[in-house]
């Protein structure tokens, strides 16, 4: 679309801008609902962060409540519980990153090596399904599979002579169960982006390599992986940027007081402190801490990607 200026000489800048906007009024009008949405549900809550620096008085509202400075943060940083939920959040999502990040890459490379396209599609169809199922439903399915008395996993363990394991009740096994089930739910869907990148690799590269005597291993190492490397970096940046998200829905559905010690993450803690106990200021302070760390992580990951000559995500 080329924008032709309708302004005549002698008009002021404001008039020019006004006539420009008037000419494209329908365009701006179409953007309006989105702008209103972002202001009300994203930017007003960002302003609402000030509640973390106030003594909230429901009668007077957020704006008129008294300021208390950093009081809530000082209290927070003195709490053992705070460090525990912070540690849980980081360790859960870090474990997930280490195992869950390479897995879909390996699977998409394996899918890419399949010679039979129909077989490939069948596998893809199967492994995408869990992505479409909610954590409440998957939670129900997990309790069924992992039940100590009549779940298949423990039945197999018992058949091999082992003792049944409380995957969801024992705090030694709870986190590994969360990590494995999260990977199980997401790996299939996560292969899509790599498979998309793989389809755009120029077939001539492979032909030239074969002429030069390269075997499949050489081709994988020197053509396939380099051509999806930038996709891998972008996905890695996004993953690092979401390290503070340890999977609220999953943990909220499956955790119970018996595993709070290892499974209580920032988001579940904020939910309980804020919405169950009604301590809005404290919960907002925890949430703000999370948002700031999150933001820093995204910026740093992007900087590092640029240092290595990749484009970054913004």
């Amino acid at each position, binding site marked *: 679309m080329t924008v032709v200026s309708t302004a005549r000489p002698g008009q002021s800048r404001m008039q020019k801008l006004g006539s420009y906007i008037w000419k494209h009024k329908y365009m701006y009008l179409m*953007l309006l609902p*989105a702008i209103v949405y972002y202001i009300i549900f*994203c930017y007003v809550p*960002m302003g*609402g962060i000030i509640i973390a620096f106030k003594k909230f008085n429901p009668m007077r509202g957020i704006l008129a409540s008294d300021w208390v400075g950093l009081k809530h943060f000082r209290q927070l940083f003195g709490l053992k519980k705070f460090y525990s939920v912070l540690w849980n959040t980081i360790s859960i999502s870090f474990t997930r990153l280490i195992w869950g990040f390479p897995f879909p890459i390996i699977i998409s490379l394996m899918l890419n090596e399949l010679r039979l396209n129909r077989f490939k599609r069948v596998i893809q*169809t199967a492994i995408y399904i869990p992505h479409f199922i909610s954590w409440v439903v998957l939670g129900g399915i997990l309790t069924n*599979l992992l039940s100590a008395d009549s779940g298949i996993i423990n039945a197999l363990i018992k058949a091999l002579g082992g003792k049944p394991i409380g995957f969801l009740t024992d705090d030694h096994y709870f986190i590994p169960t969360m990590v494995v089930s999260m990977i*199980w739910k997401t790996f299939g869907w996560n292969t899509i982006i790599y498979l998309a990148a793989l389809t755009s690799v120029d077939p001539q590269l492979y032909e030239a390599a074969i002429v030069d005597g390269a075997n499949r291993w050489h081709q994988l190492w020197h053509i396939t992986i380099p051509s999806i490397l930038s996709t891998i970096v972008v996905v890695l940046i996004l993953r690092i940027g979401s390290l503070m998200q340890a999977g609220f829905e999953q943990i909220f559905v499956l955790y119970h007081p018996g595993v709070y010690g290892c499974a209580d993450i920032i988001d579940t803690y904020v939910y309980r402190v804020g919405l169950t106990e009604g301590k809005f200021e404290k919960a907002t302070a925890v*949430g703000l801490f999370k948002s700031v760390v999150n933001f820093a992580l995204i910026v740093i990951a992007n900087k590092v990607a640029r240092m290595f000559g990749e484009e970054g995500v913004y």
Partner: protein
Amino acid sequence: MASKNRIRTSAASKAFDVFNVVFLSLLALSTLYPFWDTLVVSVSSLKSYLSTPMHFWPSEFSFEGYAYMLKKPELWMSYRNTIFITVVGTLINMAITIMAAYVLSKKDLKGHRVFTFLAVFTMMFSGGIIPTYMVVRTLGLMNKVWAMIIPAAISTYNLIILRNFFTGIPKELEESAMLDGCQEVGVLFWIVLPVSVPAITTISLFYAVDHWNDFFSAIMYINSQKAWPLQLFLRSMLFENDAAYSSGGESLFLLGQPMKMAAVMMAIIPILCAYPFFQKYFTKGVMVGAVKG
């Protein structure tokens, strides 16, 4: 790829192919088996469920679990709420997202950069759970199905995917329409939308699945049972103390796991029925999004 068929197949290469096929088949089975196990338990009688640890096939069929679930008015109420949220929510999502994505795909429109930044910034920084909750409460949305629709009216991720797709449409196509006297709005309806059907189907699908599975907004904003979506009803069936329910007539404890798995099936069946129809679209859609802009 045609080139691959011409590779001289060495023994190692063949061995790898066999391993590859076996491994991926097992992987696919491991994603499907949990659903099969659930289905089998849901149609087993409690007695046969308790007497056999492996549920490859029901040793004694019983549809008591389904009969019990189908009689519950809460199931139908939560179904109705979820269907409403999914249909109305997705329509609102699509209307706002299409309009915004189209405008943001015009890179020479004044303010384009500011508006794009406004949207993308929300992916990097947010006010957090509590301030958002306060806004929803102030707007009087608590305990209404609208609380699961309006605060989720746009997903920035989907907006960016669609904008990238619109940016990729050849400009000549739109310019020729402009010469024919079409306005910008007309171009969106007569030129852009018809060529974007796969992308739009995909994005609608993403939104619809998010609404169907939405559990987060439900536990944040919905307490009243009248507005319960399916996911909250399910959670109460699956994870809340059986004792709380056994007081109300029939004891859930007697129906046990088969009843719970019947509840799970009730939530999965609609998705599994729709899956074959939509699955050909989303691969394309994600590929669209993979093009960065």
